Structure formats: C-alpha cells, structure tokens
C-alpha cells in the first residue's frame, strides 16, 4: 500500500515541479499508519547548493521523521511550495541544509515568529540566516527595537556584524543599546589595524571623544599623546646626529613602544634634557604621571647600562629637611645592587649600595654575594661572631688588607666574642 501511495504522491508533485520553483527537485513521501499521519519530506538536491547526506561517512542523526505538530498542513505539503511553509517547517529545513524560502514572511509579525522559532532551536547558522533576511527586509530602527527584546538573537546579530566588518552599523546598534563603553572600545580596537603611525595617531585622536569609562578615557588619551610624541622624537632621532647615537646605535624605532620602554629610551639617549622638550625624561615623567618607583627603576637601568655611576648616585640623593643629603630609594637597595651588578658595576660602586641596605640579612647576603669584604667583616664584628670571621678569612688572600683586618680584630682582646 505504501509503495502505491508513494507513487501517487510523486506523480502529483511532479506537476508542481513544472512551476518555476527551481529549488524543489523531487519530493518523496513515506508515511506511517499510526493514528495521525506523520510524514517526512525528503529532498535530494542535485548539485549547486546543499546536499549533506552522501559524501562523507558520518552518523546521520537527522531523522527522516520530522516533528509531529500543528505547524504542518497536508495541503501545503502537496503544493510542494516552499512559500507556504510555517516558521517551524522553514526553520527545520534550514537546519537540515535544505532549500528554503523566506520571502513569504512579509508581515512584521511573521518575521518575528520566524526569528523566535530560529532562536528556539538554537542553531547559530539558522539564526544568522534569519537575521540576514531581517536586516534586508526591516528598517534599522524596527530591527534594533525588536532585537533589544530578544537577547539571544541580539547577541548573534552583534557577532554577525562583527564578522562582516560592519563597523558603522555595529556602533549604532551598541549606542542604541546603551552599551556605549563597548562601542567605544570596539571603535578603539580598530587602531590595531592601522599600520602607518601618523594615521594611527589621527585615528586615536578621533577616539578621544568616545564614551569610555573614566579610566579607559585616561588611558586612550595617554596612548594618543604618547604616539604623537613618539613620532616627533622618532623623526628627530632617526637622523642620529648626537654622539650617543653613534656610540650606541638604536636597535629599533621608538614608535608604538609602551611608555616605560619610551622612558628607558629617553633616559638612555636624552638624559638631562630640559623639561621643555618632549624627549626629556622629566617631561615624560610628568606628562604620563609615572610613579617615583617606576621612574627610578627605569632611569637606574638606563644609566647603569651606560655605566654612568655618577648619575645613578644622583638618583638616590634627597635633601632632608635640615638640608643634608641623604640616600633614599623607593625600591629596596638590594634590588639596586642587583641591577648594578647586572650591568657590571665595579665593586666599589656595589659596596656603596650594599652598605645602604636596611635589612641586615639582605645586607649580609648582598655583601657575601658581591664580595664586599669590608661590609662582611664589619657585620660579623658587630655581631661579635668570631667563628664566621675565621671562616670568611679563609676565603681571602693572605696579606690582603682585608685579611689583615680580620687578624687585627681577632687579636683584639677588648672584643667580647659570642663564639
């Protein structure tokens, strides 16, 4: 019985094929005599577009039986006309990669039903396809309004616009949604695609008026200012006129470098310049509100690299309220010593700073590590640790001044050793 009905249906539908419905090829019908009729529409697409069943080995989890439900009507099926399918049917077909037609969804209500159905099945492809259709067939304002009430569809739409590079529309949408910060960041992100520094600078300038959060607004402002100045510095330094550029040729351009790197560069090549110039460390420090700690660390690194021990010294000089010069450091002196050592500072220089280390353990550790003999000896003397002095003496050259110093101490009867 089934075969006969099948043939009958096919013969009816063959007529419909003659209508100018180019998407429908053949329709087969198989049914089940179980109370209500359930049927399937199976379509074989011959070439160009779809066709997901044949070529590759996979388990076909899409069944030949589709959902039983009120959305189906026998008449629409026999018409074989894609234009008469309900939202549910259309969405099913879209899911299965079969031909579909969305034009029949003319009224706003129909379109929204279609969208809601697409969202319900949660297939990203289908949701996107429907959104593309809505984008073409609805005014911007209406689409935005409807999307705002449909979170999932909205997210997909944002993703779609991002993928298609529709910046302008995306920005408008975000604005309409009140997601102004997102909009600002998204716009700002585009600067990464601009290679030419002048154009990038101009672009950043255009970002300044965007509705960033207060923090981000400051950062974007800094970014623009920095790049603007880097361009000026680069233009001048590229000519490499000054002596220092010949002695220490630049390895890279300063453009687009982070601020700390720029500061280091400035401390290296432009140290001591007046605050009036863009390239001076003091100008950079002030303009970009660099913390004392960061400034000293960076300047230290640069001046130590150049072995300008005098400059290093000046970094730590402060005048206390009585007018006396004192050495102060926002970073521990043990770290200063490490950095100096990395730059091959001579022992006398290292010794000076080891002496400034507050913490006695760190101080002793530093002295031992960097062979600041006097400090070691003095420390053990102050600790009245005779044993350690003896041990340390063995590390020294006989007859060296330090060796003799230890001898003297050990022979000093007035010292009350603890061991």
């Amino acid at each position, binding site marked *: 019985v089934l075969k006969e009905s099948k043939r009958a249906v096919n013969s009816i539908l063959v007529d419909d094929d003659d209508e100018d419905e180019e998407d429908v090829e053949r329709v087969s019908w198989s049914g089940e005599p179980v109370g209500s009729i*359930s049927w399937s529409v199976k379509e074989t697409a011959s*070439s*160009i*577009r*779809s*066709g*997901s069943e044949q*070529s*590759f080995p*996979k*388990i076909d*989890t899409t*069944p030949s*039986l*589709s*959902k039983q439900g009120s959305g189906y009507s026998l008449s629409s099926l026999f018409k074989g006309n894609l234009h008469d399918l309900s939202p549910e049917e259309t969405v099913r077909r879209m899911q299965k*990669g079969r031909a579909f037609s969305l034009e029949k969804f003319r009224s706003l209500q129909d379109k929204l039903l279609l969208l809601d159905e697409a969202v319900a*099945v*949660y*297939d*990203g*492809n*289908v949701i*996107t*396809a429907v959104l*593309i259709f809505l984008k073409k067939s609805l005014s911007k304002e209406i689409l935005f309004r409807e999307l705002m009430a449909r*979170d*999932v569809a909205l*997210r*997909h739409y*944002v*993703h*779609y616009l991002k*993928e*298609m*590079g529709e910046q302008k529309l995306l920005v408008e949408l975000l604005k309409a949604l009140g997601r102004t910060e997102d909009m600002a*960041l998204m716009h*700002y*992100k585009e*600067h*990464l*695609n601009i290679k030419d520094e002048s154009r990038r600078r101009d672009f950043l300038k255009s970002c300044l008026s965007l509705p960033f959060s207060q*923090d*981000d607004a400051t*950062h*974007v402002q*800094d*970014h623009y200012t*920095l790049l603007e100045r880097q361009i000026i510095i680069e233009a001048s330094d590229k000519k490499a006129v000054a002596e220092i550029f010949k002695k220490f040729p630049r390895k890279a351009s300063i453009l*687009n*470098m*982070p*601020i*700390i*790197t720029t500061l280091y560069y400035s401390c290296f090549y432009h140290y001591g310049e007046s605050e009036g110039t863009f390239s001076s460390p003091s100008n950079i420090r002030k303009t*970009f509100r*660099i913390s004392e700690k*960061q400034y000293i*660390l960076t300047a230290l690194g640069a001046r130590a690299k150049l072995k300008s021990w005098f400059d290093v010294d000046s970094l730590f000089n402060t005048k206390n309220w009585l007018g006396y010069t004192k050495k102060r450091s926002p970073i521990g002196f043990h*770290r200063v010593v490490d950095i100096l050592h990395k730059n091959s500072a001579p022992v006398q220089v290292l010794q000076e700073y080891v002496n400034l280390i507050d913490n006695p353990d760190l101080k002793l550790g530093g002295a031992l590590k960097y062979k600041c003999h006097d400090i070691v000896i003095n420390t053990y003397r102050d600790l009245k640790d005779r044993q350690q002095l003896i041990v340390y003496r063995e590390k020294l050259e006989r007859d060296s001044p330090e060796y003799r110093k230890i001898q003297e101490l050990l022979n000093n009867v007035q010292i009350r050793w603890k061991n």
Partner: protein
Amino acid sequence: ICFALLCHRTKLILILECQATKTCRKYVDLATNTDNANVKVLIDPKQFSRNEANGIIIIDKLQPRDFHILFVPRRSLLCEQRLKEKGVLNSFTNIDEYILDLIPYDGDLLSMESESSFRECYLENDQTSLYHAAKGLMTLQALYGTIPQIFGKGECARHVANMMLRMKREFAGSQTQILPVFDTLLLLDRNVDLLTPLATQLTYEGLIDEIFGITNGYVKLPPEKFAQKKQGEGGKELPTEPKKLQLNSAEELYAEIRDKNFNAVGAALSKKAKIISAAFEERHNAKTVGEIKQFVSQLPHMQAARSSLANHTSIAELIKDITTSEDFFDSLTVEQEFMTGVDTDKVSTYIEDCIAQKDPLIKILRLVCMQSVCNNGLKQKVLDYYKKEILQTYGYKHILTLKNLERVGLLKPQSTMRNNYPTIRKTLKLWMEDANEQNPNDISYVYSGYAPLSVRLTQVLARPGWRSIEEVLKMLPGPHFEERQQVPTGLHKKRQPGENRTILVFFLGGVTYAEIAALRFLSNMEDSGTEYIIAATKLINGTSWIKSLMDSPEENLP
C-alpha cells in the same frame, strides 16, 4: 579550522575561516606575488591582520576548474554570505560539510578543538559551539546508546542539556536499540572552575604542554638534545628543525608516565632503563637457535622501547632545566600562596618585580587573575595598581584585554559579596598539605597540593553525590541540575558486581591535561567503581586560554 585548497602557482586559493593566520599569510603572499595576469585578488589580504582571517579567493577566469568547498565542522552561513557578497559563491561546484564534532584524541579523550569556544560562550555570549557540543553528544548517543542520567553545573551546561533533550524529543520516532555504554553524563562549565587552568600544571604531560605546547597530539621540541650521536663523527652539525614527536597512549612508556607528577618521572624512567637494559642483556642467555630466534623477534619492540626511553629522557631533561630554575620556584610559590589564601588582598611584590623585568605578559596575567579568583576580586586599589603597571609596561592597547578578563570574571574588582573561596576550599579539601607526588593517594598530586575543583566536583558526584555539597554548589556560578532520559526497556544496563560505572565528563570551555590526569587517577583508584571518559570543547593550558581572550594576540607577543 583552516582549509586551504591548492598548491603553488595554480590559480585558485581558497582559505576559509583560518585560525592559523600565519598559514593564510603564506598563501596570500604566494598568490599576490605571482605575476600571472589571470590571477585576481578579490578580497583584500590586509584583512589578515585580524585574528580570524576571512577568506581570499583568486579565480582564474580563463581556465575554470572544479572547485568545492568543504566546511569543517559545519557549514557556516556567514561564510557563504561573504562568498555570495563577493560574487563567487556560484563558482563552486559543490558545497558540503564534513561534520567533525568530537575528535577522539585517545581511548578516553574526545575534543571538539574549538579554540574560541570559551571566548564565544563566556565573553561574547555566542553559544553556537554549545549547539555543536549538543550535536556531538547526540552523535555519541547514536553510537553508544542513550545516556540515562545527565548532571550539570553552569549556564552553558544547562543550555547543552536543554538542547539535547529537545533534539531527543524531535527524534522521538527513532529510538536507538543500542545497549547504553555510558551511565552518566556530567556537563561542567569552565567558569565553575576558573582557577585550575591558571595554575601551572605539574604532571609530565601537563608540563610538556605548558612549556612547549601540545597541538593535535604532537609536540615540537628544540632539536639539540635529539641529535643522533653517530660513532666516530665529531663536530656534526646540529639539526635546526624542531623535533616533532607524537604523544599518545599507543606509546607504552608515555602512557605510563604522562599522568605522573613530574617529580616521579625520573624514578619511572630509571626503572624502565633497567628493564630495557636487562632485556638487551638477554642476548647472552640465548644459546639455542630457537632462543636466538625468539630474541631477534623481540628486537623491534625492544628497540622501539629504547628509542622511546631516549626521547622521554631528553624531554624530561628539558623540562627539568625549567622546573629547577629559581624563577619557576618563585612563581610556583606565589601560585600556592594565592591558592591557600595568603596575601591575596595586597599587591604581590613578586608580580611587581616580574612586570618590572618585563616578563611575558601572559605570565603576569595568569598570576593576577589567579590572585583575583582566589580573592573573589581584587581590592580596587590593588587592581588599579596592577592595571597601571601592566598598561605602562606592555602598552595601552591592553585595556582591551583587561576588559575581556573582567567580563569573564577572571580579573575584576571586589564586590560586596563575601569571598566564598576559602569555604569552598575547606569543604572540598582543595588544598592537601601532604600531597604525595611519588605514590599519590589523592588527585591533588597533579598540582602538588591543589586538587582541581572541577575534578573534585566530579569525584563527589560519583560518591557520595552532590546532595552532600548543596551549599558549596550554590556558591559556584550557574545552576546545577539532574535530568533523566528514557532508555527503552530491556536495554537497561544490568551491572555485574564489580563492574564499573562509566561517566562521561564534558568540559564546556576547555580542559587541561592535569585535570585529565586527575580523572584517570580516579578511574584507576581501587574500588572507585567508576571509569571516566573525558570530552571537552578544547584541550587548553593557562597560556592558550588567556591568549584566546586577548585581542589581536600577534600584536601582543612580548
């Protein structure tokens, strides 16, 4: 997934949805540098500066060929749309899809290898990959039977379960007549446990991934240690190509050591060396022809074992160089301090120093995120300080990344809600002081003390069940739920005494090798009664994970 179709000097280059931008660039260069007048570039190659490349199509009008598109894993309407807009959609003879949802990486491991899944789900609120996960699970059920019990924790887990149930309803007519293999499915959102991927993994395989990166079951290693030492050859040139090795359980030695804590690997390798030596020594005992023949027949196996041992000894040496470094020790110490709640409310001097030394940005981000997660958000002052230091040292453009990290909850200001992490840690025993690295008795060995939260939840689910930790579950994000699916009568699994339950754990957003090791440990525990199969949207480590949240990572290379 990158799909490139062609070879040099032919006229059509098609690259779709490229994630390996370098490969795309190579093809673009090839195409644009050809001086064939028939080659026409239709899409601006400058678009490759973005992370997700678009496509480039060059069609030679004079010599038309048959070109097909294969979408992997699924057709993308967006892609077709783009092709349509460029007017080239009709140039293709056939458009098809090769459905590749869950890829088996090993006997107990499946991955979708969807790099952007975490970002899409938790940052962009685009849950398309979850749809694919659901589809993958339906395929799995078609092959291995309906899974009778589904547990889940998290928003995404809820979505996937809903989709599965819906898909099942739609296929109501066709019931699979297969005896169910899986007893339970556990769906876990990655954001239920944001801490674990941030920590440095300490298993052998985990460290290989952290240091060298395992891609598609392969690792590329610096070649020096793998140079063949041929006798009599002095001063041989060292190979410059990285050594590529395949890593999976088919290699006997690797299967033995991959999930061990790295500190236990040395002993295992020694033991193996002795066994292999002894086996080779057997040749002295082979007297009769029969015995010699037997020995010779074993040779290939023994040689393979020896070469495997040599490789892993070299790898272990490479890893040891790093794990014995002062920096590694300091970094690990800070991680463990954060995990045990020490000083999470102030600026860490170690992190400060690392920034000052311009350590790789991702290292910094992992640490500050860890501090934030363990503190349920950082004090505003601390957060502002870190942000300023990072932006000044690495560049202002990173405000984008910092925003992303805040959105997914990795690096955020402290809210008024109290920090539940200490409670969670205590209740679930996440920190085990005396973790035994050599002969572990608890999953915490994979991080030498820290038990991955995700695996602990899995462990408790199996025994004694989630009812015992209701309060803690409520502290973790997202709903938790249980669903049951009808299994046709007669197909109910009658479990024999002593037979294990099989639980499929699906990580939505990524899983680390350490977590996999921990789950395998649970499977192998005596009288655990459970066997775990692991599935995930992606195999991740802290670095690849954070990278996926950065905008324009190529620019961010330190």
